[in-house]
């Protein structure tokens, strides 16, 4: 047990250091973007004096190191700063959108994970058969198709041609279950397909690896049916690699969310971030970027820890 704790604490420490490095990279890259918020807000016809005054007010003239230190200090004390575009606190802007994004990601994960598990396990059980080959073709082609293409095709078919679903994902205030379904169908389907294709492939590989182990043959020779040998013997040993694969795939979901939110004009954090880029709203952009990075790091951390915990030799301290 002691070994596990040491390993996990080490991983957490490494994640914190990574996050610190990321914050520096995010800050300085955001500051490399051409143009500035003062100019953007006042428009083309603003006088140089007005722009200079605004820059002074927002502290944009301070040296970059000082601004970075101020920003980091603010983040650590829970204050992500004020949006330059509409003068509201960044945390307020994000929190109103975060639940929306989490809902989208949550629905996707809820559907994609079990779907991918079943697909992967069945393909592994009947590896080499027609089911397996069909799944291989499906997942390989889906991994190869980018989300924006898939999303656009969905819009073309279901919104433009068939006119079944709205092309914009909008949830009215008094939405019922049906409204939710209409709003979520296409974004969730797009994310699900790309995500579960990846997860199914990794699950299949993890289960197949275990199925080739002598103890599975032994279980069969003890009179256990194939399904039992897979579910009771192979699967528990494949859990580590599978959770690892799931966590890594979900971290990939964060990137997918950005594209899908923009295409369907879904009111989440990702579209907020894209708006922040157009408005040169640096505090908002930086906060969003940090949020995504933290989410990514947490998922990778879960993947790492699951790989450590799944090793029975470490778990029992033997």
């Amino acid at each position, binding site marked *: 047990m002691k070994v596990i704790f040491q390993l996990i604490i080490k991983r957490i420490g490494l994640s914190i250091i990574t996050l610190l490095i990321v914050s520096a990279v995010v800050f300085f890259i955001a500051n490399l973007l051409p143009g500035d918020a003062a100019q953007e807000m006042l428009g083309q016809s603003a006088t140089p004096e007005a722009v200079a005054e605004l820059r002074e007010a927002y502290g944009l003239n301070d040296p970059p190191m000082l601004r970075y230190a101020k920003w980091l200090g603010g983040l650590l004390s829970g204050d992500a700063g004020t949006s330059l575009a509409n003068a509201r606190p960044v945390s307020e802007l994000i929190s109103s959108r975060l639940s929306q994004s989490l809902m989208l990601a949550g629905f996707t994960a809820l559907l994609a994970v079990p779907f991918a598990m079943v697909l992967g396990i069945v393909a592994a059980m009947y590896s080499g058969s027609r089911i397996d080959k069909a799944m291989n073709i499906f997942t390989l082609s889906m991994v190869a198709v980018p989300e924006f293409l898939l999303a656009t095709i969905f819009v073309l078919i279901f919104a433009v041609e068939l006119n079944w679903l709205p092309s914009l994902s909008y949830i009215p205030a008094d939405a019922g279950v049906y409204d939710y379904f209409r709003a979520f169908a296409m974004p969730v389907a797009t994310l699900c397909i790309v995500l579960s294709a990846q997860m199914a492939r990794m699950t299949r590989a993890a289960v197949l690896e275990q199925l080739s182990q002598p103890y599975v043959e032994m279980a069969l*020779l003890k*009179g256990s049916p194939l399904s039992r040998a897979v579910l009771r013997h192979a699967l528990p*040993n494949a859990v580590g690699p599978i959770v690892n694969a799931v966590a890594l795939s979900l971290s990939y979901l964060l990137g997918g969310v950005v594209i899908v939110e923009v295409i369907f004009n879904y009111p989440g954090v990702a579209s907020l971030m894209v708006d922040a880029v157009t408005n040169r709203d640096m505090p908002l952009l930086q906060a969003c970027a940090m949020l995504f990075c933290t989410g990514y790091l947490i998922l990778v951390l879960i993947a790492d820890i699951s790989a450590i915990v799944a090793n029975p030799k470490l778990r029992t301290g033997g």
Partner: protein
Amino acid sequence: MTAHVSVEKLRVEAGPQGQERTIVHDVSFSLERGEVLALIGESGSGKTTIALSLLGYARPGCRISGGAVHVGEDNMAAMNAAQLAGVRGRKVAYVAQSAAAAFNPSRRIMEQVIESALMHGVMSRSQAESKAIELFKQLSLPSPQTIGRRYPHEVSGGQLQRLMAAMALICEPELIIFDEPTTALDVTTQVDVLKAFKDVVKAYNTTAVYVSHDLAVVAQIADQILVLQNGRMMENNPTPTILNHAEHAYTRQLLSAVQDSDSYKDNEPGEVVIDIANIDAGYGKISRDGKPEIPILSDISMRVRRGQTVGIIGESGSGKSTFARVIAGLLPAANGSMLLNNKELTPAIVDRSKAECQQIQMVFQNADTALNPAHKVGDILGRPLTFFHGLKGAARKQRVAELLELVKLPTDLADRKCGALSGGQKQRINLARALAAEPSVILCDEVTSALDTVVAAAILELLGELQAKLNIAIVFISHDISTVKSLCDEIMVLYKGKTVQYTSGKQFASGPYEPYTELLLNSVPTLDPTWLDSRQSRA
């Protein structure tokens, strides 16, 4: 009385449809209830395939394509998956070669031992558990009440092998298949496990099929022996007939490989190549008195002369491979001194000069993993030539051809990829790679353990010839006492990282022995069928 188990014209094919090869050709035999049959042969002889067909099972890619396998009333070759699942584990049980791999690492031992009893519904959980504990006692396992609560990695290899026998016996099957159940064990452990198997089989009047490549082991336990080669039956006779009046030439060849020869080597000693004194080595921090935190070797001294072979014998965990790594500098010694050609040799390989590295070459146990299967033989042998001797182009090609000739391989092999070679050929390439550096000493770590007896004998012969021709020193590490005895001028016995005995080969042939050496020597089974029983009475 009708036969309990009868196999008629069994035929097994392997490979994809349309291009099958037959791997078992029309094998027939029959057994009375309570009899033990041994299937003996080298790897690829089809012995495990035949044994598995008694469970109605063929490994992925193989198919039972003809014949009948009767166990009692049932024809295992003609049953469907559901029928087979009902019979396996209940009526016919299997004991696999490597218990360490055949136990599920993530579930407790007891769960796995009683699993088939619960699956077949022959008894309740509490009945099954008390039955298992009774079996643990019969198989003389330590703390039978609690051992089931452990995980497989928490017990030793010999214990795990006996636990697997308990797993097979839980439903009191009519037939047990033992698939090389002691091959992965040390000799001293093997004796106890064999004893336990023999007693239990007798106590339950179980019919058994015992698969092995070791005639001496089989002689202790089998009533009948079936000799196989390339999937064909060579000979099937009662054990005494096979041992004393073998009909087939191949059987006699196998017998002669086991027979203990009293020969020993005694070469003219040349000058000392490697002189090792009072080495300590291990892992972890090194304390002030020069001992590592986790010591593996302590106070080992050895001297190897030109043209001489020093053998190191020990069981797994004795530190014999670690010693080779210490000499090679892969694991730097914590203290002690090493002299190479009378010059001080630094412990770590990173601090050694190119010339020093060139003088000491290592031949690893498993040529399959030591050679990159995607590389051509010519490149594998050519790299040390360029690295140590700066050979390029035609000169390098010429030298590669010479090396291949030296290890008695055709020179056109240079253009072939390693993955396409046989096990024996790979081991020769492995040896040639070490020789390419023109070393003064080579370290051979269990170089024959992964090979069949006949192939291994050829490699050992080659090693002897090369030594005479090139006048090199060899450190030969093995767990096989008879090989070491016949090959080495000096022999060192290691136990738990300490030297138990270090004598000349001549003296080792006659004795006297230290108690542990004695135990090792007495644990090697002989062809005398009463050997195991006589050890039983002594114990």
